[in-house]
């Protein structure tokens, strides 16, 4: 009896989790179960890897049962109390976390030293968190970041649970500056839907190593909707089949995020801000200090194909693994956003009131608060030479409004030893900018005050507040400029049978038709050589045909002459 209730409860909780996740994602369709690959062999993509069926990962292999710790057997009211309890044993954890991007939202360009990161750039989705911290910091690995006065040094502001919750009940809502839900409340306000308070004790007593759910609670929902931002990260990766992700396949290798993004001292490897774009050499061995454990090559080496396919191994000095092995991203019905047009924000419905619309697949298409979106599924990437480092527009950088503003420019050049051809998602948009100072603006979108865009639908006020918070001058004149942001694609690796075939690139209209700097047979040729060559062939053919005709004609004439003569 108990077990039955227990199972039912569990099912209920997971259903509730799914529902809440979707509601956070402003109602996206329930993630479609990804199509499982045909039940062929469980063989892995690489013959060098063991092909035996691997046992499914056990729930926990920890030597500690946190529910037995007296430090955690207290009635926690707020998160900082939990954090203090954690730190009483894990003495270095907070300072470790505080050195990571998950905490600082900053990252330095390894080549130029430019300080980037979510805090300093203006991205192509929600733009900037500045002046909107109460909402945005629902995805900060801390609590209390409400404005620029946030104390980045305080250990008790670290949020251990957002990454280590194993119950699936821990939840942080926009508007709470990164605090979990302490009391049952209506969300979104006025919706009539209520969310339960997080049981901090229960969550604290069942902490575990981060699962896909932990990482996904933020990374699947970037830009505020399931799948919206990345295109290769969404809730379909909770329970993926082989077709969607050959490594995360729940019935196969069943990788967690951290199996590739191996982590040391809370520093998670493999960041979009500094991608290991051109790893060479052999597969890495255990114990070896590793600069790029998240790269494909760290397990597969840069010559992963068997000797019979050596030509493919020879491609690895020009082409990233991802280019062939992620033939499409967003390979599901969830899809991903391809554009966000902020210039449509503040456009009201027919009755003069804010309105919202969904597309035929139930994904957000328009909202008076945020503008218009275009979604796509099964998207063919755009390809770029890439060396792993992008140069970003940071807040206050000048722009040229006569051109499409590149939010980031992926570094790399043809044939540079550090560059490979990578698949990317190019996200296009329109953003407000200061027409006098020629900078992208920071706008105060979220909030309850009079100047917040989502309260009063007044761009002028929202930008004035946002720019003030960012410490930038604002001329008062704003317009909208076209923007592009480029995202290297690296997740949703397909099984080998779904990889690109040669002719998908080796043809005049193939995937890489716009890639410069590399000669590709079947795509490229020298028109002069071709023209002269075929001319010579035609002339030769015509010459021998003429000669043959003359021979026949002469022969007949000679016969006739012989008769007559």
């Amino acid at each position, binding site marked *: 009896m108990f077990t039955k209730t227990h199972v039912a409860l569990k099912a209920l909780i997971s259903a509730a989790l799914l529902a809440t996740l979707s509601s956070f994602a402003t109602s996206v369709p329930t993630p479609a179960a990804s199509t499982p690959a045909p039940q062929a062999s469980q063989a892995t993509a690489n013959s060098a890897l063991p092909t035996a069926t691997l046992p499914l990962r056990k729930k926990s292999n920890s030597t500690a049962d946190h529910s037995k710790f007296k430090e955690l057997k207290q009635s926690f009211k707020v998160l900082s109390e939990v954090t203090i309890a954690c730190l009483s044993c894990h003495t270095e954890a907070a300072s470790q976390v505080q050195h990571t991007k998950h905490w600082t939202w900053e990252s330095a360009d390894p080549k130029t030293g430019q300080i980037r990161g979510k805090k300093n750039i203006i991205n192509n989705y929600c733009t900037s968190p500045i002046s909107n911290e109460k909402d945005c910091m629902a995805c900060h690995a801390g609590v209390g970041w409400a404005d620029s006065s946030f104390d980045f040094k305080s250990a008790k502001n670290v949020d251990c649970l957002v990454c280590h919750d194993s119950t699936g009940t821990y939840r942080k809502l926009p508007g709470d500056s990164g605090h979990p839900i302490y009391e049952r409340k209506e969300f979104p306000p006025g919706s009539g839907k209520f969310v339960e308070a997080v049981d901090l004790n229960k969550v604290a007593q069942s902490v575990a190593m981060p699962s896909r759910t932990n990482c996904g609670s933020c990374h699947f929902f970037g830009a505020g909707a399931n799948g919206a931002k990345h295109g290769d990260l969404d809730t379909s990766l909770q329970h993926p089949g082989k077709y969607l992700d050959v490594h995360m396949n729940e019935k196969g290798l069943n990788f967690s995020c951290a199996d590739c993004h191996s982590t040391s001292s809370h520093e998670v490897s493999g960041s979009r801000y500094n991608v290991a774009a051109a790893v060479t050499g052999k597969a890495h061995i255990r114990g070896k200090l590793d600069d790029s454990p998240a790269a494909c090559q760290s397990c597969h080496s840069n010559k992963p194909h068997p000797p019979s396919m050596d*030509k493919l*191994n*020879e491609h690895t*000095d020009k082409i990233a693994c991802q280019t062939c092995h992620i033939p499409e991203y967003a390979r599901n019905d969830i899809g991903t956003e391809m554009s966000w047009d902020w210039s449509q924000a503040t456009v009201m419905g027919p009755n003069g009131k804010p309105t919202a619309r969904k597309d035929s697949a139930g994904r957000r298409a328009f909202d008076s608060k945020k503008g218009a979106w275009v979604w796509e599924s099964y998207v063919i990437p755009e390809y770029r030479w890439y060396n792993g480092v992008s140069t970003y527009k940071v807040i206050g950088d000048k722009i040229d409004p006569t051109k499409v503003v590149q939010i980031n420019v992926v570094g790399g050049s043809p044939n540079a030893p550090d560059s490979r051809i990578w698949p990317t998602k190019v996200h296009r948009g329109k953003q407000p900018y200061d027409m006098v100072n020629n900078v992208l603006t920071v706008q105060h979108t979220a909030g309850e005050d009079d100047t917040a865009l989502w309260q009063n639908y007044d761009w002028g006020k929202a930008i004035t507040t946002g720019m003030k918070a960012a410490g930038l001058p604002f001329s008062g004149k704003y317009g909208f400029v076209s923007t592009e942001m480029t995202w290297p694609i690296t997740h949703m690796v397909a099984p080998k049978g779904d990889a690109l*075939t*040669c*002719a998908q690139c*080796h*043809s*005049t209209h193939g995937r890489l038709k716009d890639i410069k700097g*590399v*000669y590709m*047979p*079947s*795509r*490229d*040729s*020298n028109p002069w*050589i*071709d023209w*002269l*060559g*075929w001319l*010579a*062939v035609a002339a*030769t*053919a015509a010459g*021998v045909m003429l*000669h*043959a005709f*003359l*021979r026949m004609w*002469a*022969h007949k004439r*000679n*016969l006739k002459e*012989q008769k007559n003569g």
Partner: protein
Amino acid sequence: MDKAIDTPPQDVGTRIYLYKRYERFWHWSQAVLVIIMMLSGFEVHGSYHLLGFESAVNLHTQSAWLLLSLWAFTIFWQFTTGEWRQYLPTLKRVDAMVRYYAWGIFRDAPNPFHKTLQHKHNPLQRLAYLALLAMISPLVWGSGLLYLFRSNWARVSLDSWLQLEWVAWAHTAGAFMMLVFFIVHIYLATIGHKPTAHIKAMITGWEDAD
């Protein structure tokens, strides 16, 4: 039908064993491989779609290795039999051959060249084979092998200055020359006393003495 009218009838009964067994095997297997390589090569180049890019590449590469192996045996054969001397060029009586092809052949003039075991190739043929061996072959094989081993360029410091594009251009140019040679070769094979005479000889080894 094509007995020469203004020359005395030939002794058609006289035949010479011109092409030895290995020579004929070499010729025809090379012919098949060259045709396969041209067909697959121009597909890889993007001139048309026949087998599909991947199959064309594999076929082209495998044929190349087969042809290279065949050549290894053939070079050995040429030197042990002394047949390599057949390819020594000469300018003697080239003008007579040119005149024959451009004029005499239409007047049923006799072929100024007579095949013998010592001289299987006429002077023009020798020049043509010299061009094939000294120009087209090195161009095609040199560029082809560089192409095939592109990923090893760095080991021998070729990558610092050599561009794949140039190699591909050279290979394509060589391929066109080869195709031109092939067309002329096929045509000239029909130019014996009967259109099929030379071809028959290359199959049976026996050539009618003329």
